[in-house]
């Protein structure tokens, strides 16, 4: 009896250990993909110095396949300088970085997707001002605007890294051609086109704002695009800086203009249902009906390129292409966009070397070459871009003509930009009137 029983207890244990061994056998490859590659050409990296055995810890929001590409972009840098970059990516970065900073256990370097969060951390005194070498590089490689996003109260803290262009409208050239629809050049033309499409029995727009606890953010991009195009860059800046209230008539008007599309049962939500299905549709699948012809247009940033089903031909005459959300006038080129900023919580020569590399044109070229990323770095060679759309976006970012404005919700204080603005959008789509929503957001603005 007794030995039977002990055998029973052994069984699950044995099963466990077998399982653990099998699984660990699956994941044998660690770190670099088996140093088969020839040694890197280190001449480009001599300026950074060598720090054998030093480690720099990096924390950011970038995970999964994008993490691989990012880590590849500094592989040569690691090999030549001897610095080991200990990278950690997490979807919970925005809260966890605050927790770690507060507890006195921050990473050496953090990559912030929101200047607003960066500013808050800098004002709390956690982040170290950028070393002069890094500032010199940023002056050389980036426009004043981009530098200013990494600047808090006159002190420069963080160099920009990658970027995205928001406010593209994705559509299917083949569907447009079949139906004789033209790509609109102005906002009014776009509204006319929407009506035409709606009359033909297809819902012109699809949208999806569901994104876990960040639900609502794609809607903020809509509002920002219209504020920039309708009220102009000056008002946009005042809005971000809270020099005009969030419920200013010009802002309210922008909401209503977006509402003409998003809250119009005739215009949305192709392939998913009624207006309210926007907030329950996940942002990553929201564009899919464009491919299937159940919806004509989808508003989303450059990174939507990665969300199309595999094998989709993204080109001017292919399955999918995109035009910039038009302004009041034809040919105006005002765009909104986002990006990341590299800031340091600690100081030291290896950290300075890493920051310098991240601000350099080499890094931008190394990363863009691998695809799926763009940067506003002026030293970036646009021909390296992996797709026509990326190349076009880089040229837009580098062009003097472009009026570029950073994503407003990312610049606003977290209490608004990562909280009440999002939930406001959600309430608004769910049926709350515009005035009520903008008043609520205004009242949440921290004084």
């Amino acid at each position, binding site marked *: 009896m007794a030995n039977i029983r002990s055998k029973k207890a052994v069984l699950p244990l044995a099963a466990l250990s077998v399982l653990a*061994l099998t699984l660990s056998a699956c994941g044998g490859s660690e770190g670099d993909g088996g140093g088969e590659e020839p040694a890197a050409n280190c001449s480009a990296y001599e300026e950074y110095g060598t720090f054998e055995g030093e480690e720099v810890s990096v924390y950011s929001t970038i995970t999964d396949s994008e993490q691989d590409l990012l880590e590849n972009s500094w592989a040569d840098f690691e090999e030549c300088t001897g610095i080991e970059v200990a990278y950690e990516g997490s979807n919970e970065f*925005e809260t966890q970085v605050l927790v770690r900073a507060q507890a006195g256990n921050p990473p050496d370097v953090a990559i912030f997707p929101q200047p607003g969060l960066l500013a808050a951390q800098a004002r709390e005194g956690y982040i170290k001002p950028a070393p002069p070498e890094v500032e010199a590089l940023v002056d050389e490689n980036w426009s004043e605007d981009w530098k200013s996003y990494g600047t808090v109260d006159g002190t420069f803290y963080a160099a920009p890294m990658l970027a995205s262009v928001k406010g593209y409208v994705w559509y299917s050239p083949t569907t447009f051609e079949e139906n004789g629809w033209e790509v609109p050049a102005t906002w009014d033309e776009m509204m006319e086109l929407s009506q035409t499409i709606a009359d033909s029995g297809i819902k012109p727009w699809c949208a999806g704002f569901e994104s*876990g606890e960040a639900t609502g953010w794609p809607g903020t991009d809509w509002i920002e695009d219209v504020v920039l195009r309708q009220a102009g860059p000056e008002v946009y800046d005042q809005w971000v800086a809270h020099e005009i209230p969030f419920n200013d008539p010009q802002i309210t008007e922008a909401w209503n203009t977006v509402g003409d599309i998003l809250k119009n049962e005739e215009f949305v939500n192709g392939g998913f249902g009624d207006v309210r299905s926007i907030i*329950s549709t996940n942002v990553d699948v929201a564009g899919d009906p464009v491919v299937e012809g159940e919806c004509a247009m989808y508003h989303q940033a450059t990174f939507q390129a990665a969300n199309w089903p595999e094998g989709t031909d993204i080109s001017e005459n292919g399955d999918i292409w995109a035009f910039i959300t038009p302004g009041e006038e034809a040919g105006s080129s005002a765009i909104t966009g986002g990006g990341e900023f590299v800031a340091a919580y600690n100081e030291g020569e290896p950290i300075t070397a890493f920051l310098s590399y991240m601000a350099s044109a080499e890094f931008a070229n190394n990363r863009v070459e691998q695809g799926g990323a763009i940067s506003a770095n002026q030293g970036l060679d646009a021909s390296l871009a992996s797709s026509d759309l990326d190349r076009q976006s880089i040229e837009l970012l580098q062009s003097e003509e472009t009026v570029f404005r950073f994503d407003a919700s990312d610049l606003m204080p977290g209490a608004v930009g990562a909280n009440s603005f999002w939930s406001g959008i959600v309430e608004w789509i769910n049926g709350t009137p515009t005035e009520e929503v903008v008043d609520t957001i205004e009242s949440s603005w921290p004084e």
Partner: protein
Amino acid sequence: MEDVGEKFLQVVIALAIFAAIIGLIMLLVDRAPKSFRDKATIIGFLAPAGILLTVGMVWPAVQTTFLAFTDRDGNVNGLDNFIWMFTEPTALVTLRNTVLWVILVPTISTIVGLVYAVFIDKAHGERVLKALVFMPMAISMVGAGIIWNFMYAYRGTEQDQIGLVNQILVWFGGEPRQFLLDAPWNTFFLIVVMVWIQVGFAMVVLSAAIKGIPADIVEASRLDGATAWQQFWSVTIPSIRGALIVVVTTITIITLKVFDIVRTMTAGNYDTSVVANEMYTQAFRANEPGRGAALALVLFLMVLPVVLYNARQLKKQKEIR
């Protein structure tokens, strides 16, 4: 696989250190002079738990209490945070929802768990039936959120439904609904998820308690000619009263702290937020640690009745002894 060995070596070393500490405590307690031995026992046995709790819970609790009376810059602002809580409409909705959760989840979970435990007791395939209901416990709350987002998923009337609940509605000729968007019903649909998880806990504990009922009592009541129903009320329930209180208490407290489900399924939108979720939002997203702390204090006050009730039970038990 040397690093696997290394990792388990760490575990073994840690357990050895822990065993050494405990062994040392036992030794000291045993070697204490006779006159002091009882005191030494009490101190020695309570010391590990006492030290850990003081450092990891009491101290943060004290800090939180102070934090609740400060604004975002750390200046004392009196009762402002509490005023905000009881005047701001969204905060009031949060409180209302929390009360709903705390009333419904423990009651429904315990009833279903108990009924199920009684039904499957000594039935054929009891282990399998138990495992099936226990399974949700083994899924993380985030996983549960994903599962139920699937269940509630909505597509328009022209499209194929991908969510089972709406599909069933459509099969029966109904209109698909957006389950998670319409307050106040959406809170009930979230509560369903928590119940689905907690029934497994209730069932396991209560089933063990039922098995502990001495066979002679059951036998006696049967010889008295009691029906199954009478037996349930006169034998089963009184015999497992202690276990029932434990289950209700534990689920109540787990429910008060619930935040993963709300966070993954609605992010607290559509008037579904609960205190724990709002606390997280205020402290980490809205950058209002004071409000977060005030919410935590209110949470504490909400659980106080549960604590006091249990304390009274405790006293009663002592008297019986």
